[in-house]
């Protein structure tokens, strides 16, 4: 608090611009310090730790082990397996979410009764904490008394109760269903908000020109929504790459390692096997994967942009 006073005393010439700079520094400071100390420094520190042999039990003694953590990761195959599971999970859940979300957003954007109430009600799963959603779906999936098996059996869709979460083939899909339940509302709301931003007269003009509903969707709705789609699918991808609670609660990565994603694998390595160094190495490689992913993602949408431009 001393500085502004001093500056004022020194003269008016310094004033406006310098005051602006000081003001800016003061208001940016809290966020900057917070982000630096809980994200900036930790990320650098964990990159550094990935080259050491550090155990949770003996954090004081860090022994440089060159690239041993990394070598181990590639030697035992679990790491590569977990990357495969992660990508399978992320792409499936985001793709399904996007298609279903688009369908529901189109329905709610049309003229159906109670749509305002519906828009509110369908958002509730989104505020339900993830682990609560996980527990809820575990109860629905429960093999003997779970309501889902009962319904499917009554409808004669299955003959025997399914072991949703302990079946190697099914477990990942079961987790995806729970993820879908939790995440679909957000997707729908965002797409719906995007749709409502499209001027109605575009559709009127298209109707006069004799465009069908399908053509209107393909040539008006989709292109106009492009930025929204890019943002929401990216948010969904990022969120699901990091997804931890659903897997941890519902399967703990099992059966065997059928649902061991990067998040589960790295957590287990660092905090169950207590090998912080190796955990940090997974994090470092994961970071590289994310960089490549976001680069590819931007390229993907940039290609779409080029095409759109040439069509006009």
């Amino acid at each position: 608090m001393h500085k502004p006073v001093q500056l004022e005393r020194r003269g008016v010439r310094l004033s406006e611009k310098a005051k602006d700079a000081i003001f800016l520094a003061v208001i940016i400071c809290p966020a900057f310090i917070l982000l630096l100390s809980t994200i900036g420094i930790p990320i650098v520190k964990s990159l550094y730790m990935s080259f050491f042999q550090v155990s949770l039990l003996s954090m004081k003694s860090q022994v440089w082990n060159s690239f041993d953590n990394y070598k181990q990761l590639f030697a035992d195959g679990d790491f590569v397996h977990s990357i495969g599971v992660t990508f399978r999970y992320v792409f499936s859940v985001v793709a399904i979410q996007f298609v279903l979300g688009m369908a529901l957003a189109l329905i709610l954007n049309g003229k159906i009764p109670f749509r305002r109430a519906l828009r509110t009600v369908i958002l509730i799963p989104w505020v339900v904490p993830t682990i609560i959603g996980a527990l809820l779906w575990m109860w629905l999936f429960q093999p003997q008394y779970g309501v889902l098996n009962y319904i499917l059996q009554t409808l004669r869709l299955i003959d025997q109760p399914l072991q949703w979460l302990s079946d190697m083939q099914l477990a990942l899909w079961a987790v995806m269903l729970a993820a879908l339940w939790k995440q679909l509302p957000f997707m729908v709301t965002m797409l719906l908000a995007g749709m409502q931003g499209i001027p109605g007269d575009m559709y009127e003009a298209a109707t006069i020109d004799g465009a069908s509903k399908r053509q209107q969707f393909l040539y008006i709705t989709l292109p106009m929504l492009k930025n929204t789609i890019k943002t929401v699918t990216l948010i969904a991808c990022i969120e699901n790459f990091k997804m931890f609670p659903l897997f941890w609660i519902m399967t703990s990565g099992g059966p065997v390692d059928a649902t061991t994603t990067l998040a589960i694998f790295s957590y287990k390595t660092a905090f169950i096997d207590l090998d912080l160094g190796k955990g940090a190495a997974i994090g470092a490689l994961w970071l590289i994967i994310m960089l490549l992913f976001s680069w590819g993602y931007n390229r993907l949408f940039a290609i779409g942009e080029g095409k759109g431009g040439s069509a006009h």
Partner: protein
Amino acid sequence: MRQRRIFGAALPLLGAAAFLLFLVFPLYWMLLTSFKGNSALFRIPPDWFPSEPVLSHYKKLFADNVFTTYYRNSLLVGFGSTAITLIAAMFAGYGFSRFEFRFKSLALFSILSTQMLPVVSLLIALYTIYNGYGLLNTRTGLVIALTTASLPFSIWMIKVFFDNIPVALEESAKIDGASRFGILFRIVMPLTKPGIFSIGIYSFILSWDDFLYSLTLINKDELRTLNAGISIRYIGELSYDWASIMTVCVTSIVPISLLFLFFQKYMVSGLTAGAVKG
């Protein structure tokens, strides 16, 4: 032709009904289960409506001191991180909205890209850093960690709100001799109320949802938050006590759903502003 038209009109309704069933039925089932006695719980075919509702699970839950502790911790941590997020995001968002400076777009971009960082890297380093500064097993430590989880997107959201307020208002206040902080607090902030509400609710929801940070950074039972507490208490048992679990779930959802229903308007507008325009 007419058949087709009827079908075309009915299809959206059927679709909406199917989605509604998928999204709402599980919640109904949770609520129903929490009122089922142990004999009704395992009945096949199940009771679809509360035939003989019992309150025993709720009574048992609220008699259990540990759960009220978890609750209090979750609320404290939630309010704490929300308050810090609000202050830090408001200031930073205003700075990013009103001032031009070097590396501004780089800074904004890096703030957002922190969302992509692998959680485990952050956790491992935070764990060792916290260990060194005695922040492990403290609510303060958890609050700080959770604040940074919601801060990046909050800055983006509130910046969009500030962008929409005409600068002319501030300029006339400046001519009238108002200080910079005075302008921010007395003129800009009241106009950004919806934005402030939406980031407040966003960060509270995020901290209420947190599981990983509190699982890792806290291992004293009296400091645990609700989510971590539930998982420690109920997961990994040989047979799950489903009625009690659903009861805890209901009580965990109640505060957050009420908050949501009251402030729904703000939240949706805030998120769409941040995500779609930003």
